C-alpha cells in the first residue's frame, strides 16, 4: 500500500487530493509512469519541473519506494 498526495495545480487538474494504491513500485519514477498511463488529465504529471517527496522529504524520481510509504507530487514550490 502506497499513499499518494497531490498538491496545488496538480490537485486541481486531477480533481483529487490523494489516493491509496495497492501495488508495489520499485521507485517514485515507476509510480509516476503508472499514473501517467491513466492518460487524460494525468499528463500533468509529465511536467519536467514536477517535484516529489517521499515521507515528507523532497527527493528525486530515482528514490526507491517501500510498502507503507507516503509520497507526494507537486508543481515547483512558490512560497516566500
Amino acid at each position: 500500500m502506497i499513499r499518494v498526495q497531490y498538491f496545488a495545480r496538480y490537485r486541481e487538474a486531477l480533481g483529487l487530493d490523494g489516493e491509496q494504491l495497492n501495488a508495489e513500485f520499485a521507485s517514485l519514477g515507476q509510480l509516476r509512469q503508472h499514473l501517467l498511463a491513466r492518460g487524460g488529465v494525468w499528463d500533468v504529471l509529465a511536467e519536467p519541473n514536477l517535484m516529489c517527496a517521499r515521507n515528507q522529504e523532497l527527493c528525486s524520481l530515482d528514490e526507491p519506494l517501500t510498502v507503507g510509504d507516503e509520497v507526494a507530487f507537486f508543481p515547483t514550490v512558490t512560497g516566500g
Partner: protein
Amino acid sequence: MSIRVQLQAFDPGVELNGLHATNLGIGAVVSFVGYVRDFNEGRDVGGMFLEHFPGMTEKALGKIAEEAAQRWPLLGIQIIHRVGHLQPGEPIVFVGVCSAHRQAAFEACDFVMDYLKTRAPFWKKEDTREGPRWVEGRSSDQTAAARWQLT
C-alpha cells in the same frame, strides 16, 4: 530556533524586537520580510491564497534552519510563514537571524530565503481580474539557491 506556519497575521516589528531580547550575546540581527504585492507579471493582484503541505512544511523549514545553524555561527533563527488568504500589503514571510557579528547573520538570512523559496512546500494562487492564477516557479530562484551548494 522557532518555526511558525500560521493563518494569522503577524507584526514583523514585534517579531524583530523580540529576537535579541533572549540573549545579550547577540550583536547582530538580520531580517527579511516578504509582502504580497498588488501587481505581478503584468496583472493586478487583488489577493492570494497560500496552499501548503501540512507536516512537511514545518519539517522542511526546520531542516533549512538547522542547515543554516550548521554553516554559520548563529545565536537564533526565526521563520514565520503565512498560509491561507492574504491581502496585498500583508507580510507573507519573516526570517530573522541572530549572531554575534553581522556577516554570519547576513549570509544565513540570504541562505534561508533561497532555500525556503525552492524547497519548502508552499504554492501561491493569485486572485487577478482574469480569475485565479497559480504562480509559476522562477528559474532565478533555482539559480539563487544553487549558489549555496557545497562542492
